[in-house]
């Protein structure tokens, strides 16, 4: 199995889309697509991150020979348990329940780390709008009050004229 095939298999087993994986790795979806098609290889840092995300060893991800050797000697494959499919020395490659619990918070923190400007920007915009809106209400109310006053004056003037 090539790196791309393994990556695609791991991603699909985890039920992730290319978009989600791309977001987790801070790369474009096109980059993930190219990795899966074995057109390019990710940087070392990304490979480490992929191994962490899917709880597999770097060895499994990068070594094609290991898999082929296992196929050649099925006994060896039996000894390593799920080594053929489950890549991390017999461990299930689905994330553990503990990891699943930690993920949303960790994901949020990573998202904040990368896209902090979204929070600052939208925060400022809403803060500014929240300051302006009461002023608009005051202006509207004042306008209405002024209208009433003018109306009263005009009414009074009309009465006087008649």
């Amino acid at each position, binding site marked *: 199995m090539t790196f791309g095939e393994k990556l695609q298999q791991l991603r699909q087993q985890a039920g992730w889309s290319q978009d989600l994986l791309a977001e987790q790795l*801070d*790369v474009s979806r096109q980059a993930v697509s190219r990795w899966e098609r074995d057109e390019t290889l990710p*940087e070392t840092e*990304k490979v480490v991150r992929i191994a962490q995300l899917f709880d597999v060893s770097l060895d499994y991800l990068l070594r094609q020979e290991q898999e082929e050797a296992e196929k050649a000697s099925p006994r060896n494959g039996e000894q390593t348990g799920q080594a053929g499919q489950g890549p991390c020395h017999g461990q299930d490659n689905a994330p553990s329940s503990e990891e699943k619990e930690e993920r949303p918070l960790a994901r949020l923190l990573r998202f904040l780390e990368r896209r902090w400007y979204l929070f600052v920007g*939208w925060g400022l915009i809403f803060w500014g709008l929240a*300051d*302006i809106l009461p002023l608009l209400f005051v202006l509207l109310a004042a306008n209405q009050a002024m209208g009433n006053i003018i109306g009263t004056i005009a009414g009074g003037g009309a009465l006087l004229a008649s």
Partner: protein
Amino acid sequence: MQMASNALPVTLFLSLIATPLLKVVAGVLILYFGHRHWKNNRSENG
């Protein structure tokens, strides 16, 4: 007295209109440049 009457509209303008508008503009600029920076720095090839 003259100064106080001149300062009032300026203060009102700054506190009621200019500062909130500045916040909105700053927010929009941060979003724009932040997104541009993030997009440029995002690795295309991993």
